[in-house]
């Protein structure tokens, strides 16, 4: 291993050093400052004679005399089943005071693309116990379904609720393997948010089946580039070599993208939209696509990345590119939140692309697809009518329109609203759906098969409502 004292330029998170032998692209570098600190970095560009290095911990304290060592390998994550229950920093070093980690093997953190031919199509229903998700935007094993949120919205509560409650119903009956191993990758979140997560993990005992990676708001931004990759490498190891079903929560992807932009700017790259690098789509895809199932393997990786949309704008490059890669999105809504709806999920712009294959007879229930379609259509119609009510008043509307308005109100107040501690089974969710739909005239249910209407529609709704009260 050769050591150099040849730093020629330091700029932002980048260090340039002269070398006299070839250095591989992406190789890991250790920089030792004069006061004895060791910083780690990665080769961003390797030319003959000079390399540019991105330093994870920030370049503070580095001077021309610092020594640079090239380790001759790309970044690796030491993985072992013993990682479960551990808390690590954003670079993968334990910070919980526990014993040293003895790795089973060391895996490249960049991760290779899964051959599309080797994938297995995800279609196992995950019951999260949240009606707005289970009923309307069903999550399946191996899916990547982000939460699109905004500053000040309770996305963390929702993520925690999912992590706590997620099960696969059939396996419940066998009484084993129903719980997920949770990998939690935090990028640039505040200490307070981190505490919230940790407290919940400890309170519910979830920590035992979790691995936590913490890059906090005051940790170096460049490190955020590595944190999700460490988390996903661990997830892949647990899923595809140790047969775990893994749920990966990454928060907050917005901070990750900011770090990406920072490095791009430091490298003086041609910026794309809003200053984010042109390769951000590819870079994000390399993270998100590490979810899935593989034929012949027991385990699975399911991802729930969280991102806060700057200005609640879903056309901002971060949510926009994410939406093009992930298999849908759960959209949090500020209005619903201020109305006190918990969780404030707006189902209209939300979507789960893998829902159709994960529901139906034998998976959830035969009527699931139709009920969800009908509720979408009815809620959308009710929402439209609300605009009209603002202008002409409710009295001016027909009886039919008023029923749709009532439906939209009840949908928010009873179906979406459930609180963060209520765990509804899919049966409960669908029955609740029928309860709401039965307020509408039967002929209006044009998305539902006639036989299903005959089976589930509650003819005498007024009597039903009395009983429910």
């Amino acid at each position: 291993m050769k050591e150099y004292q040849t730093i020629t330029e330091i700029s932002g998170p980048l260090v340039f050093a002269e070398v006299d032998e070839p250095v591989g692209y992406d190789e890991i570098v250790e920089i030792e400052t004069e006061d004895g600190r060791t910083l780690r970095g990665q080769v961003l560009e390797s030319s003959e004679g000079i390399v540019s290095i991105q330093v994870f911990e920030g370049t503070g304290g580095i001077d021309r005399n610092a020594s640079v060592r090239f380790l001759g390998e790309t970044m690796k994550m030491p993985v072992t089943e013993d990682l479960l229950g551990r808390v690590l920093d954003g670079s993968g070093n334990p910070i919980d005071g526990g014993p040293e980690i003895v790795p089973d093997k060391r895996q490249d953190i960049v991760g290779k693309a899964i051959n599309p031919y080797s994938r297995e199509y995800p279609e196992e229903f995950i019951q999260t116990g949240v009606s707005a998700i289970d009923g309307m935007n069903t999550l399946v094993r191996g899916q990547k379904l982000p939460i699109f949120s905004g500053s000040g919205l309770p996305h963390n509560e929702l993520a925690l609720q999912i992590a706590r409650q997620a099960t696969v119903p059939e396996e419940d009956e066998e009484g084993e393997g129903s719980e997920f191993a949770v990998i939690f990758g935090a990028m640039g979140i505040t200490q307070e948010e981190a505490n919230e997560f940790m407290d919940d993990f400890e309170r519910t005992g979830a920590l035992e089946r979790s691995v936590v990676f913490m890059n906090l708001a005051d940790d170096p931004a460049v490190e955020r580039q590595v944190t999700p990759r460490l988390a996903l490498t661990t997830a892949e190891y647990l899923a595809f070599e140790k047969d775990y079903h893994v749920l990966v929560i990454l928060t907050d992807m917005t901070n990750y993208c900011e770090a990406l932009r920072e490095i791009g700017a430091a490298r003086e790259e041609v910026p794309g939209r809003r200053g984010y690098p042109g390769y951000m789509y590819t870079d994000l895809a390399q993270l998100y696509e590490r979810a899935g199932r593989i034929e012949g393997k027991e385990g699975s990786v399911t991802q729930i990345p969280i991102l806060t949309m700057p200005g609640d704008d879903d056309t901002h490059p971060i949510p926009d590119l994410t939406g093009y890669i992930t298999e849908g999105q759960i959209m949090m809504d500020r209005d619903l939140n201020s109305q006190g709806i918990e969780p404030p999920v707006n189902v209209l712009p939300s979507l789960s692309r893998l829902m159709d294959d994960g529901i139906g007879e034998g998976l959830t229930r035969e009527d699931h697809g139709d009920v969800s379609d009908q509720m979408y259509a009815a809620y959308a119609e009710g929402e439209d009518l609300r605009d009209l009510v603002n202008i002409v008043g409710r009295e001016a509307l027909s009886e039919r329109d008023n029923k749709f308005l009532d439906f939209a109100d009840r949908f928010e107040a009873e179906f979406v609203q459930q609180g963060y501690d209520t765990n509804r089974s899919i049966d409960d969710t669908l029955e609740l759906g029928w309860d709401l739909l039965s307020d509408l005239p039967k002929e209006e249910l044009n998305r539902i098969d006639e036989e299903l209407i005959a089976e589930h529609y509650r003819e005498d709704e007024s009597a039903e409502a009395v009983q429910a009260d």
Partner: protein
Amino acid sequence: MSQAEQTETVDEDGVIESVSGPVVTATDLDARMNDVVYVGDEGLMGEVIEIEGNLTTIQVYEETSGVGPGEPVENTGEPLSVDLGPGMMDSIYDGVQRPLDVLEDKMGTAFLDRGVDAPGIDLEKEWEFEPTVEEGDAVEPGDVVGVVEETVTIDHKVMVPPDYEGGEVASVESGEFTVEETVVELDNGEEIQMHQEWPVREARPAGEKETPTEPLVTGQRVQDGLFPLAKGGTAAIPGPFGSGKTVTQQQLAKWSDADIVVYIGCGERGNEMTEVIEDFPELPDPQTGNPLMARTCLIANTSNMPVAARESCIYTGITIAEYYRDMGYDVALMADSTSRWAEAMREISSRLEEMPGEEGYPAYLAAALSEFYERAGKFQLLGGGEGSISVVGAVSPPGGDFSEPVTQNTLRIVKTFWALDADLAERRHFPSINWNESYSLYKDQLDPWWTDNVAGDWAETRQWAVDVLDEEDELQEIVQLVGKDALPEDQQLTLEVARYLREAWLQQNALHDVDTYCEPEKTYRMLGAIQTFNDEAFEALDAGVPPEEITDVDAAPKLNRMGTAEEWEEFIDEIENDLKEQLRALY
């Protein structure tokens, strides 16, 4: 990538000078533009994209982690080519035509490794070659010399390669051969094998382009009915995420009446490709009843696979499509999504530090797009006869904003525009093709086909539907202000008719066994039933029946069940009768 005739002679070795992501520069490499080179100790595949003095710039189709200066670069002396021959149907390739199933075997893992190459078609497999020429026959480039049964659906025609001179047939073989064995020899010494190679960036030669007059029947009502695409035409499907681009593309791949489908998953999701791989072998082809895969070639370069291979996958796909066109087939090519392709160009361009054009895209974006779409069309073939390529490109505009460069440059070329609408998708109106924004310039030239094959009054019926939808659009603006009940009675009725047009006719459930495919007759009859309702309803209104009573008749909501009705002919007859009976009973 083509290995079949790969020459082992290396022109000149170069040395890597620098590495930055997928872009590598090398010195002392004697290469031409677009030559394929093998980079580094692991032999990663790349392509020469710039030559400047002694410095050659290469885009590498695989991950470059760990590759460093000083490692060798080896030139193959050949441009990026595809292997063409029997065995391409029922295959799944990456962006440089490496079969993904073979890669899985060779790598022994579910993850894609680097430095593994495989020929695009099986070179060992023997095919039953049946000659269609005899000794002494004169053949020209493009002429068919024999036939191979490639799949149950597709007869693969072995042709004289377009770059041959042609001549008299000197000898002909018959029986089982591998693709590399000579099956026909010409008197000038040219040998014809079942296997050809063709550089992907060069269009295969064909005769004149004709005006397409036959529709590509898609089985989707809104597309066939309102915005048809011709066999040999071009279409774009732009839409924000979640608006149903991929489902629309997949529906086309499943149900369109093309002979051959080439489906390119360009920079899209892995699970989506897996869905296609799992579904297509089980779905029947609506024309033949054979598995869909038997007429399909998949190219999957998902978003996390190397970006340079994403740039090339579009070319790989269209070259394969052209090869089947040369056999006289009607080929449909779906590219999902061309925006990812454009982004790949942008990424490479920015690594080359080229002067960027609009939104960072390279200045040659428009040229690259039009070059690609121009390879579509209905052609007279070199060997006689006709063949066509219809191209459907999905576009993923950032933020759903259609004014961005990729959408705009695409719209300047394509003649059919299916605009997907997030609002419609949100209320689960699928396919979410917006009927006000979309258009098809093929309508008029395809009308004769509809008149001859479906119904004499097709054009008028369609125009009636368009008019009603237009009127609804205007009325909705008023409704938004004053409410529906403030409208005059006839306009209320028009709104009701328009609602049936939208919900019963334009909407189509891709997941329903029956509704997923709608033959042209059914499309026409369903529209006819709604028109019957319209005519009878207005008759009743004229006779003084209040609109509430008209819309309340039992038969009307049944219009919504037409799409899913199994015995649709009887069902529609019954509705039409009931509508007449019930509405006439009101006055």
